[in-house]
């Protein structure tokens, strides 16, 4: 379709009072390539929208440039449907609200920003969603314990088909050995019965759930809506196509053999919480040493947990599980002496009421670090501890049984670390920091970057984001329950239901060609111009989501349904062969080239700002809303993620005479905030390689700076911008001006 562009400049909100709109429109008209350029007193008003629509009809416009307020506001008003390319130029928040009115430099800024917007609109194509006719909307649930059973049932109840794969010959997982559950409803003091058998039967009778028992996942290839799963079951391999995966393989108790200092393996009457639970399930609660009934018991909490030599984290569920087991004893005989050795009793929320009940029941709580478990010489055990506060030693009377609350380790932590391919001789070492992947033989993903979900800390493939707890680093694979993070049973049930929804959402989004979080619904996806690929592997290595595989000749094999549309691959590619229809290296490059750079005698420096659109760009808006002012030399281009920054833009800008480039991205490092995980870090790494370009141009390295910024840092923006401008002033003008 022929491009017909309409540029609409808003005169409202003080824009007409601050800028010379005639001159602005004149300049815009020169770049709009046969389009039109109009002005309206208030574009966002019903009259303004009607005016735009009328012009669209009369002039046959299919591209709109709206030069008014920030694209972060009036989004619902300026909505002209998916067929119209719409570019918003931010003249209000980022121009007139931060800069002097009726000033030559403010005017030049507005002209540059508008010109860049026009170039962008001209170079954008409406995205065509990725689609295949063999998409599946079925959900694979891996692991048939409480979380897995819940995920499968909830999926089916929502009207979707679930495929459940369990490695043992029975469903139920850990729950098979659970006698009763801690309280979860009023009065929050009574234990709760749990009928696993009924739940298993209900699940097996559910039409929409296909169950494989005694089965393991041999391999998973593909991506969302296109996952091909090979399952090893009795009688040979089975193939299933699914749309998304919920990972519910749970956790296992921490190896008690490593807890010899607490008497495990030394005394037969020192057992684990799971062993005790099994005794209650089998109704034979006796001392392993002699088969006699248990007439007194001591629980040792944090056995292995909160211990840098064992599990540094808190296993979350053990305090409550131990209270529950203490209650078993108190229920069978209220006179049984029950000791609980603890550090902090973590009975959060309503569990506090249960804790109170145990105190009323006469349970003896000792706040101490256990120093030893010893034989009393007559078959009993004595637990000694140091009181945490006073350091004074505390000992129990002789007890019959010692129970270790030995914490939990995620099943994903079991295995050898996966080693990324080592570079062949002559190859560069990969720039991207490798993911921590443990080959736990659970999913066996056929992904170039490794066979399992990347772990954060301690082997948990958890989300790093507080606001988005389901964001694993592999698209369409959602961990839930104790494999994701230490949690109690009630939380695991909720977690599994939530993960089931994320899986459903993923297949719904993907089947419409849209991206999942955080660019939810984005219909664009990267296309590769393979003829020019040099097999450098940067895109396959740097994709934060492992979306790109490789063939044996190192050609990238993109999986569009795994893609999150951050553009990190586009930023990584030295050959510039990766582009989105509405976001490309050439497009941003041409925007940069359209900036007018006055010659050095005019003493008007030009500084390019490449700003992360999630954090830095809103921060710039907030600076405007707060009417903070800063130098008018800056020209701002928002990026999907700083990781999509291609170094050629830096070279383009510098060789054009732009004095400096400021990259504004999210915090990286351990507590990173980048919602594409590594984007801002990758930009930092690429920056270190810019030196080569700068040397070639004989320019100072200080001309390029990266700042980490969150939205809440907006009060710092003027200082950040001014200090960079001041440094560039010291360096003097870029000698390439005028070339």
């Amino acid at each position: 379709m022929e491009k017909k562009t309409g540029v609409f400049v808003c005169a409202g909100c003080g824009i007409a009072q601050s800028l010379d709109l005639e001159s602005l429109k004149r300049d815009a008209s020169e770049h709009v390539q046969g389009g039109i350029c109009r002005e309206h007193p208030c574009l966002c008003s019903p009259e303004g929208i009607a005016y735009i629509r009328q012009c669209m009809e009369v002039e046959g416009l299919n591209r709109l440039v709206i030069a008014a307020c920030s694209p972060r506001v009036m989004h619902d008003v300026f909505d002209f449907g998916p067929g119209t390319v719409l570019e918003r130029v931010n003249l209000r928040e980022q121009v007139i609200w931060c800069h002097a009115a009726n000033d030559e430099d403010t005017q030049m800024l507005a002209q540059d920003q508008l010109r860049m917007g026009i170039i962008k609109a001209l170079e954008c194509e409406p995205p065509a969603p990725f689609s295949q006719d063999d998409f599946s909307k079925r959900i694979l649930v891996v692991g048939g314990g409480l979380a897995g059973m819940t995920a499968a049932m909830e999926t089916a109840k929502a009207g979707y088909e679930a495929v459940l794969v369990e490695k043992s010959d029975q469903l139920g997982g850990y729950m098979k050995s659970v006698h009763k559950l801690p309280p979860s409803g009023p009065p929050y003091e009574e234990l709760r019965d749990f009928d696993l058998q009924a739940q298993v039967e209900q699940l097996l009778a559910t039409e929409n759930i296909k169950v494989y028992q005694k089965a393991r996942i041999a391999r998973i290839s593909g991506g969302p809506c296109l996952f091909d799963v090979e399952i090893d079951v009795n009688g040979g391999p089975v193939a299933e196509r699914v749309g998304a995966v919920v990972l519910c393989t749970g956790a296992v108790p921490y190896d008690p053999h490593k807890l010899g200092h607490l008497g495990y393996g030394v005394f037969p009457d020192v057992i684990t919480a799971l062993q005790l639970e099994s005794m209650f399930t089998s109704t034979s609660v006796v001392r392993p040493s002699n088969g006699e009934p248990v007439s007194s018991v001591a629980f040792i909490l944090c056995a292995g947990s909160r211990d840098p030599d064992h599990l540094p984290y808190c296993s979350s569920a053990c305090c409550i599980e131990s209270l529950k087991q203490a209650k078993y004893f108190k229920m069978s005989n209220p006179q049984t002496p029950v000791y609980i050795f603890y550090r902090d009793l973590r009975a959060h929320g309503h569990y506090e009421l249960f804790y109170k009940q145990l105190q009323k029941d006469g349970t003896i709580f000792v706040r101490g670090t256990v120093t030893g478990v010893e034989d009393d010489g007559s078959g009993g055990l004595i637990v000694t501890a140091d009181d945490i506060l006073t350091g004074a030693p505390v000992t129990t009377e002789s007890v019959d049984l010692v129970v270790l609350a030995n914490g939990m380790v995620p099943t994903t932590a079991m295995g050898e670390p996966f080693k990324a391919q080592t570079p062949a001789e002559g190859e560069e070492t990969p720039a991207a920091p490798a993911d921590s992947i443990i080959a736990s033989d659970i999913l066996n993903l056929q992904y170039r970057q490794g066979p399992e979900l990347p772990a954060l800390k301690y082997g948990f493939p958890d989300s790093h984001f507080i606001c988005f707890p389901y964001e694993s680093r592999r698209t369409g694979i959602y961990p839930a329950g104790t494999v994701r993070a230490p949690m109690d049973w009630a939380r695991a049930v909720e977690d599994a239901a939530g993960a089931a929804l994320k899986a459903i959402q993923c297949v719904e989004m993907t089947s419409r060609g849209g991206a999942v979080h955080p660019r939810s619904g984005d219909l664009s996806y990267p296309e590769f111009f393979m003829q020019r690929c040099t097999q450098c592997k940067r895109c396959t290595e740097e994709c934060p989501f492992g979306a790109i595989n490789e063939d044996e000749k190192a050609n990238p094999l993109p999986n569009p349904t795994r893609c999150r549309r951050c553009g990190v691959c586009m930023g990584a590619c030295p050959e510039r062969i990766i582009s989105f229809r509405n976001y490309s290296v050439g497009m941003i490059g041409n925007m940069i080239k359209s900036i007018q750079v006055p010659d050095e005698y005019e003493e008007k420096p030009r500084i390019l700002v490449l700003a992360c659109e999630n954090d830095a760009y809103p921060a710039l808006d907030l600076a405007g809303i707060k009417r903070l002012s800063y130098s008018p030399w800056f020209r701002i281009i928002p990026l999907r993620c700083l990781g999509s920054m291609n170094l050629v833009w830096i070279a383009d800008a510098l060789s054009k005479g732009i004095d400096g480039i400021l990259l504004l991205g999210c915090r990286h490092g351990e507590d990173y905030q980048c919602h594409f995980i590594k984007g801002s870090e990758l930009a930092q790494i690429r920056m270190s390689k810019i030196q080569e370009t700068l040397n070639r141009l004989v320019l100072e390295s200080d001309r390029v700076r990266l700042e980490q910024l969150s939205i809440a840092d907006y009060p710092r923006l003027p200082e950040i911008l001014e200090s960079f401008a001041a440094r560039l002033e010291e360096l003097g003008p870029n000698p390439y001006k005028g070339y």
Partner: protein
Amino acid sequence: MSSSLEGNRSILVVGGGMSGLSAALEAAEAGFQVYLVEREPYLGGRVARMNRYFPKLCPPSCGLEINFRRIRNNPLIRTFTLAQVEKIIGEAGNFDVTIRMMPRYVNERCTGCGACEAAAVTKVPDPFNYGLSSVMAAHLPHEFAFPMRYVLAPEILGTEEAEKIKASCPYGAIELDMQPRLFDLKVGAVIWATGWQPYAAEKINYYGFGKHRNVITNVLMERLASPGGPTGGRILRPFDGKGVHHIAFVQCAGSRDENHLPYCSGICCLASLKQATYLLEQEPEARATIFYIDIRALGKYEDFYVKVQSDERVRLVKGKVGEITEDPESGVVTLQVEDQGSGRILKEPFDLVVLATGMVPSTAVDAIPSDPRVALDAMGFVLSEGGIPGIYGAGCVTAPMDVASCVQEATAAALRAIQATRRG
């Protein structure tokens, strides 16, 4: 999914805080029509007023921005601010809901230009800062408000100033005679996510909140530390605006206490550890003391606890604070507490005391107006079982919880709501 299902497939989410936003977005992104109703003039709820989250110490605006953007890009979500649910009748798959829209006195023509604010002269207490500062009678709810639309304080209605403000708007956006408005929605399921309120600290009379100016609560501390807060993010003593050198945190202020809240509020330990870092970052010479019963840093939050605890400027004292007094001359507040380590009674002076007050579910204050009633426990939390099919609690109305758990639970609630719409 079968398209022949009967019943109303839309979902009402009540409460636009973290839980409500998440529930609304997760359901809408799965393809369902969602109505999101929020009482305040902006979305974001309680977290919008926080400075940073534990354990990453990142600002809530980052995740909120992503969520707001998801709303902008999703035509399936309709949001109503300054709106409350008046009545819910019906059953799963077929609820009739009455919504009351409170007047904003500013209509959709508002561009956010600020002319009205420039025309205003009267200042009113800023509700966003819990009244710690004041704003113009015409104001943006806060600088990061979504939607970015002004609101008028009703106090000035009927004055000449109100007319001037009206005249100042070039777009005819000020409507001084705007009235509350009722309208009905038909939905298949309801998610109730109205969140929590801080326990009224003045009820713990021996702590002197409301009387001693240098005794504040943890929610006030969040505003004091926020860049958009009343002090521009500087933690200063309310008594005299002076800096803080020694701060105390009183844990379980009202929580785990049968005279107040019998349960544990779950998040206050971590909130105080976090708030200690706020001060220490600003004032490297400062000291923080945390008086606690147990430090409940579950799961990987343990790492955060270990990190803060290892800072030598932070002291943790196990003991329940008995009484707080303030010197009327200097504003110095003295805490009396039995140190369970030494068994001694400590009396220590501080510049500022932060009460780690707990969470009260909003449903304990404002019941869900449904017929029949949604079952609550004795403390006002929404029960997950035995309730009305089709109405689900999410987030802190079901139990005290942190932000990540709220999002997780809201996502689960979105699934249950989707399931309920199939039953119509």
